């Protein structure tokens, strides 16, 4: 299998990015109920609003810490990829937008990949950074997902992907569209090795991201209230010229329409994943 022989283990990140322990804003306003929440309390509650249960977006670092055993994980360095392949410019140069996003956060692109254990079982988690250009998927994200899949195969680990993305990165044109087949290939690598591939759909998972790896999970979990769909709500409204139904494209709506296995509260997410991985890998564990 050539993709394994070609594979070079991604460099382990030399330095784990410094995490700001004290948030810049002490208070966060819930986007749903408007409640002012003390950031420290909000974080202790896994970024779920205690008054309305809204699952707020979280950084990939926090997400990984929440999922892995003891909050310990080893991030990998994402493969170096071509920067600004089209030399794209709208009102601003894409190269500048990219630089800005890189300077304002810890990540080089919209994906963080790490390995560790969940319930003692090896796992690779790839979490999107919505704060990085809307979590949009270009060449770097696609390559990151391929690296995650290869690492999972190499380590015989489960692969868990947590999208939070508006879709393909327009500034990379058709090359971002090509990440649909490329990430599908990544999923196939994990499936061919009969390792669990679990997707945790978070707010939002739309466009090209939803139309590829995100909808190909062996098991698909969604967080409550997450917006999940292919076409944007505004585009649909403009096309059909009517108001969208209540709860349209929300996790619960997808559940009712048979598109996801489980809608799981963030509080239960780690335990749910731990149980699923344990059940799916039971035979392997027994055989060992």
């Amino acid at each position, binding site marked *: 299998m*050539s*993709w394994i022989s070609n594979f070079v283990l991604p460099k382990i990140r030399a330095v784990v990015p410094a995490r700001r322990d004290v948030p810049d804003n002490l208070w966060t306003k819930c986007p749903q109920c408007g409640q002012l929440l003390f950031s420290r309390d909000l974080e202790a509650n896994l970024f779920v609003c205690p008054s309305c249960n809204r699952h707020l977006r979280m950084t990939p670092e926090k997400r990984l810490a929440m999922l892995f055993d003891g909050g310990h994980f080893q991030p990998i360095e994402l493969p170096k*990829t*071509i920067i*600004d*392949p*089209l*030399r*794209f*410019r*709208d*009102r601003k140069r894409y190269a500048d937008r990219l630089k800005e996003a890189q300077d304002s956060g810890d990540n080089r692109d919209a994906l963080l990949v790490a390995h560790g254990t969940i319930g003692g079982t090896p796992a690779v988690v790839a979490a999107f950074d919505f704060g990085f250009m809307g979590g949009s998927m270009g*060449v770097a994200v*696609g*390559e990151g997902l*391929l690296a995650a899949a290869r690492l999972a195969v190499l380590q015989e680990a489960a692969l868990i992907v947590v999208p939070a993305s508006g879709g*393909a990165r*327009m*500034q*990379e*044109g*058709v*090359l*971002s*569209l*090509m*990440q*649909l*087949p*490329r990430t*599908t*290939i990544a*999923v*196939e690598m994990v499936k061919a090795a009969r390792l669990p591939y679990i997707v945790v759909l978070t707010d939002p998972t*739309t*466009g*090209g991201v*939803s*139309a*590829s*790896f*995100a*909808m*190909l999970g062996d098991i698909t979990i969604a967080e409550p209230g997450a917006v*999940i*769909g*292919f*076409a*944007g709500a505004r*585009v*649909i409204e403009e*096309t*059909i010229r009517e108001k*969208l139904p209540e709860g*349209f*494209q929300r996790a619960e*709506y997808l559940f009712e*329409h*048979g*598109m996801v296995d489980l809608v799981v509260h963030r509080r239960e997410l780690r335990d749910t994943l731990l149980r699923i991985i344990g059940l799916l890998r039971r035979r392997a564990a027994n055989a060992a």
Partner: protein
Amino acid sequence: MRHYLDFEKPIAELEDKIEELRHLSNSAELNIADEVSRLETKLDRQLRQVYARLTPWQKVQIARHPDRPHGVDFIKGLIAEFTPLAGDRAFAEDRAIIGGIGRFRGQSVMVIAHEKGADTDARMKHNFGMARPEGYRKARRLMELADHFHLPVLSFVDTAGAYPGVDAEARGQAEAIARAIDTCLKIEVPLVATIIGEGGSGGAIALAAGNRVLMLEHAVYSVISPEGCASILWRMPEKAQEAADALKLTAQDLAKLGVVDDVVAEPLGGGHRAPAKTVAAVGDAVEEALRPLLGLDGPALRAQRREKFLAVGGRGL
């Protein structure tokens, strides 16, 4: 009546003049034949000039030209004994994507094509080539059928994109596209995809993750329409021309990016001026693309497809 695009005005004027003179010549005037041939030379030169320096936005308009050959025209022109196959076996028959078995230059094949429709009735019937989940699920079913009987798959892509509707979302548009892409990549028979008009985003790649991807000279292929891109990034839909430039959606740019393997030349003045010739040119290119693939076994075909898509993105413009 011929439909002219804005930038084809000088061409339209010349053709009008020629037409007028031809009518006069019926009344046996002198020297008219000379004048007609002089104008025809001019017309030819004009066409060459205009079509030699088309902007990406002009190509978008050509790709959407109503007289351009559509999916059904490619099937009619290239596939003998065509036998249409319908339905996704779960919900409905989606006519935005048509498909069936037939014979392509002697070889049994499966054909899957977007169809936009040539007149108002047909456009309604085919939903302007914008498929719902059923369309992609039918495509998947047909690819699997082809796989089962070792038939090569030929796909013809021409869509503004997947249909953005409540019903489409409710029935899993994203999942349907994802699985169609997955099936393109999985089948152990050759898949030759041709972008014949508009290659619109997920709705296009759902049929186009092939061993070879061909593209007509003036077709376009993009992650988002220029209008959509302009309204999101510029916040002004009227910036579509600039967005078309920035998106690098022409066949020529996509060949440089390694997304497209072969660009098929169109007759002078674009496919809409000579649909039959265009269809035949695509037929020749498809035959050439298919020939070496017929010698490969299933796993080799799968591996070639993977390697091809894994290599994309290694180089920019």
